[in-house]
């Protein structure tokens, strides 16, 4: 909860999409295993526990991939906006 709340607060307070992405991707990597561990500790090796573990694996694998693609999109978007700023100068 604290990880997620900290990431959301940083998302709101930080300036710039890259800084926000930095926080969100960190939370996206930390929070799902913690939740899956909590569910596994309660349910044990049941169907629910295995499903929670599977969901955590999916989120942990897709998190950095999506963060990389969004970061590339942010970089391309900002780079395209720079010539306009230079023209104004």
């Amino acid at each position, binding site marked *: *909860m604290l990880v*997620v*709340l900290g*990431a*959301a*607060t940083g*998302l*709101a307070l930080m300036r710039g*999409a890259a800084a*926000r*992405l930095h926080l*969100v991707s960190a*939370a*996206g990597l930390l*929070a*799902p295993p913690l*939740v*899956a561990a*909590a*569910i596994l500790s*309660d*349910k044990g090796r049941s*169907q*629910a526990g295995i*499903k*929670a573990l*599977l*969901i955590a694996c*999916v*989120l942990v694998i*897709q*998190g950095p*991939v*999506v963060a990389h*693609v*969004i970061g*590339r*999109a*942010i970089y*391309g*978007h*900002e780079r*395209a906006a720079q010539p306009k700023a230079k023209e104004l100068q």
Partner: protein
Amino acid sequence: MIVAALICAAVLLRGRHLSDRLVALQMLSLLTVLALLILAQAMSRPSFFDLALALAILSFPGALLYAHFVERWLR
């Protein structure tokens, strides 16, 4: 988690640039999956695990497509 989701929704609605909103959307989808997991555990409803799995799997190509759109088409 509701507080975190409300903060993300506020950034999503009031974000200045499209990239900020994309990051907020990604965070919101993660929060939804985690909320479904916790609800499934708390209410002892195994069907919510399937919902969370479907959302986790489907949010991946959605985020990729949106980022591809921002990168290629909004120059």
